[in-house]
């Protein structure tokens, strides 16, 4: 593996490159060096660029690769680009809480799904017991509602936090 994946893609060694920059660099090198080219391409360079792209694909991975690189190598002290004011995401819309519901499956998966499952099982089993013991009474829906309420209140902490929290 190339010790400097940024170099393999012809990019400056910076952790703040965008996904699009990395992808463009990879595509340019791939187009120029692919082994299927009529001139046979450059297999070694193509392989190195592919591996580097796989290594630098996400922001987190770029940060890691950068940290590894700067441990031993010379630091890059070229000036940073100014953060453009319009590069920031638009203001949060008021209906964002509703949109956040879409994150719930991922939050469950990244949280403690087993504990949530146990909680849900306990709540469901007790609800069944209540419905079996006091069917048709006013207390039955209240008890079941109370168990759901308990599940919601106590299960929140077993979910992973939403993004950027």
């Amino acid at each position, binding site marked *: 593996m190339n010790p400097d994946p940024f170099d393999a893609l012809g990019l400056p060694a910076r952790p703040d490159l965008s996904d699009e920059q990395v992808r463009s660099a990879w595509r340019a090198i791939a187009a120029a060096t692919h082994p299927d080219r009529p001139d046979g391409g450059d297999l070694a360079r193509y392989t190195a660029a592919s591996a580097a792209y796989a290594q630098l*694909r996400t*922001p987190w991975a770029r940060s890691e690769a950068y940290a590894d690189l700067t441990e031993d190598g010379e630091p890059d002290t070229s000036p940073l680009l100014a953060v453009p004011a319009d590069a920031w995401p638009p203001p949060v819309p008021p209906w964002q809480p509703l949109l956040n519901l879409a994150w719930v499956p991922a939050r469950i998966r990244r949280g403690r799904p087993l504990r949530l499952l146990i909680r849900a099982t306990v709540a469901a089993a007790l609800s069944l017991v209540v419905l079996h013991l006091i069917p048709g009474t*006013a207390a039955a829906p209240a008890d079941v509602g*109370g168990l759901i309420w308990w599940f919601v209140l106590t299960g929140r*902490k077993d979910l992973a936090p939403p993004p950027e929290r």
Partner: protein
Amino acid sequence: MSVWSWLKLTMFLWLLRKTVKFTGGLLLAAVLVAAWPVMLVAVIGYLAAWLRGWPPVRLYRTAAWTLPVTAGWLIIVEVRAPGWRSAALTPGRAWARGFDHLTAAGLAHTFALLLPVAVPAGLALAGLAWGWRIYAVTAGIGGWTASAPISFDARQWKRQVRAAQGLNRAPGAVPLLARGGRIPVGATIRAIGHRWRPVFALPAEACARHMVVVGATGSGKTNLMIRLWAGWFTAALQAAQAGRGNRPLLIVLDCKGGRDARSKADRTRRLLYGAGARRVAIWPDEARLCLWDLPASDLAVLLYQMIDTGTGAAAYYADILQAVLTMAVLAPCGPPVNTAGFLDRLEAKWLQHAWSDGRHPAELAQARAAARHLPDIQLRYATLLGRLGPALDGPGTLAEADAWYCILEGTREPSVAEAQAMALTELAACAATSLDGEPRVMLLAADDYSAVARRVPISNLYERGRSLGIGVQVSAQTWQGLGRDDDERYRIAATADGGVFVLQAPYPEPLTVLAGNRRVLETAHKLVGNLWGDEGTTRIQRTSVADPDLIRHLKVGQACYIHRGAATFVQVARPKASPLTLLPAPAAEPLVQVPKPRREPDPAPPAWPQGPASLDDVFGSRDEP
């Protein structure tokens, strides 16, 4: 009165007392048995509070959270049989009917029917009983032995710590940012004077003011500070995105330096990227700043302060130095743009030429008078700026990144680190007051500032930050590290309106004094032999809100937050960005499968020529003539 009569009277009074007490207990037991569903919930609640070290308020709040269920039940009863009488009588009827079927199924049936009422009532009752128990033991009127208050407190502390650690392990319990822009720090162990919440969270404004963190090495200070930085950054960023403020700019001065600082910087950077930062610069390893961008007058003062100047007779040379610097930096042609340019100006020829335009005769005369000192001054600055390295020589400004992690080698090269700290705080001040750029809300955090505090006292940093509207967070390993003398230390700690975090420290007393005292009851019992007698006294005493002995024995990751005469002990949660933000590292294999090159089959090697049958065919036969 005869002795016999006195004995009879005494016996009668004793019996009367015991009878009244027994009857009272019997009545209470009867009520408790009669209201068994409520009692069952109360016992469960009481045991949970005892085992988990909860304060009574937690039981009250839980009871309050169950009231919506009770309200829902009342609505259903009202819909089915309108009129308040039916709602009022329903639990009583269910309870009375329960005594007709004293079987397990019958009792479960009755309990299920009464749950909407029994749960809030039982939890409230458990809260009252638990509150009374805590009061009785701590006031010295409960417990079996004289040491009961001490052992009760120690046992409860252990349980509270265990419960807090358990809560911290839950993935969603302590995020980087909570609702209302609050910064969660960790699970609450114990709150004294503050409102108790399961997770202790600070308002983001507290970080935007002045805060002090004191803790010995290895006490968990780094985790706490990184969490506060990330929380503040997330809160400020979200407020900016919602249009409620300016974008944040976090400047961290890691004044100790070394390899640890690099890994800390990397960790902070990852966390800030997860919190939404676009650029986190680590200075001087990967980014530069430009000292020469400072306004000329500020630059002249800063350059003067960066050099050690003596007092007494040496003040003469200090004055010459200042005059030369002022002339070099404020020359009519403009301030220097880099180190080389500045050093060039410290030559007699340059200075005299620069001020020889005919309009500055006084400065020209000064340049001539100082000419013989200029080589020395140039040498001193060449040495200083050479040691500072190129990281302050630009190009680069603080506005280019969302956060700057500045590593100063305060342990290895204190004098260089001090000069760097001065320059960086000046640059931060310039960024805060600059009218040209985008306004930013700033937090200047100085970790282990005592390593460089000789030349820039923390109190100056504080006062500077306050006047510029910058939040300042300062950490030190000990109380002594906060300042040169007690006056300065006290000034720093007492003006920390964002609060003081004390982690395990050998001498926390001066900081705990800030939390003040609280009134407690102290009960003395008369001992009869080895047992307590019936008589004793109770008096009001004062004790520390933040117990210094408790702080001295804090474990790693435990902190005491002191603010406005109250204290909260907290188990600091390790800061982690949401896993939904930080995507997992890609798999080891390349994303794009490398196709195998098309290879033509290797050509077969040419066949060996048909060899002669024998060497005689080549060389001829010996027999041949």
